[in-house]
């Protein structure tokens, strides 16, 4: 059984088989962690819409310009442990709903320890699934308050 699974995985990798939706989500996070901007962008549909802690990026270009760099910085500085995942949808439209335990340390030494809730919608385009929607939120009220303040006060880096 293990051999069959390994052969299936090997053939998928060897012959470039398209990723399933959950793998696309994981690949996006890996690209951020690896500081690979082009790889992260390549997984996004040109019709992307992002809801992120009360902020809206109405286009993929807006997300790429405004928030992807910050998301990359956070991905590099933190550890995201997948806790739950539910995949759904059918045909060309799929969903991947995940929760992560995010831990790390902020610039000033304060610890990061929160639950991140992530909704990802994907659409098949050609032979590949691409992300058409992200929605991130968290259970941490202090984080949400900081996000609200920063949205109205702070300049971008």
């Amino acid at each position, binding site marked *: 059984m293990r051999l069959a699974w390994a052969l299936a995985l090997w053939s998928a990798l060897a012959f470039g088989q398209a990723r399933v939706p959950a793998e696309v989500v994981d690949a996006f996070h890996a690209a951020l962690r690896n500081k690979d901007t082009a790889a992260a962008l390549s997984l996004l549909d040109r019709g992307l819409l992002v809801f992120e802690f009360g902020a809206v990026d109405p286009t993929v*270009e807006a997300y790429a310009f405004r928030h992807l760099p*910050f998301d990359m*910085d956070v991905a*590099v500085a*933190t550890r995201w442990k997948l806790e739950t995942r539910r995949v759904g949808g059918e045909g060309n439209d799929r969903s991947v709903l995940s929760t992560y335990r995010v831990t790390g340390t902020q610039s000033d030494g304060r610890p*990061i320890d929160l639950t991140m809730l992530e909704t990802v919608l994907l659409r098949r385009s050609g032979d590949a699934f691409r992300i058409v929607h992200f929605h991130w939120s968290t259970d941490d009220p202090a984080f949400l308050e900081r996000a609200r303040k*920063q949205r109205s006060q702070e300049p*971008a880096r």
Partner: protein
Amino acid sequence: MKVPALFLVLALGAGAARAGHDAIDVDRSMKRHAGQVTALGEPDGEGRIYSFRARRLPAAPDFVANELRGWRLTMLAGQRFAQAFEVQGNMGLEIVVGPLDGPLNGIAVNDVFVLEEIAIERAARQ
């Protein structure tokens, strides 16, 4: 084409836009600068374009000569969206990319890009 929405983003200024994972205050993972194409460079004899002029977003002083040499340029909009190039050099805001990643043909005035102080890992994408 989503240029109007992107223009709105740029017109609003990045200052009004910050939120998201960045509510976590972490160190930058690398130096980066954003910019917008203002003019395309002259094509070579075979029509290949390897340079362009730009303006910085948000506005900032011009880059020092060859400050960006070896940096990674990634297009964030337009026909070459998600394509990465290695900067061969720069004179102020005129940016020249090397030939290894192919020419820039397809980029257009107003396309937005990011410059990051990191090498391109070409093997990883082949």
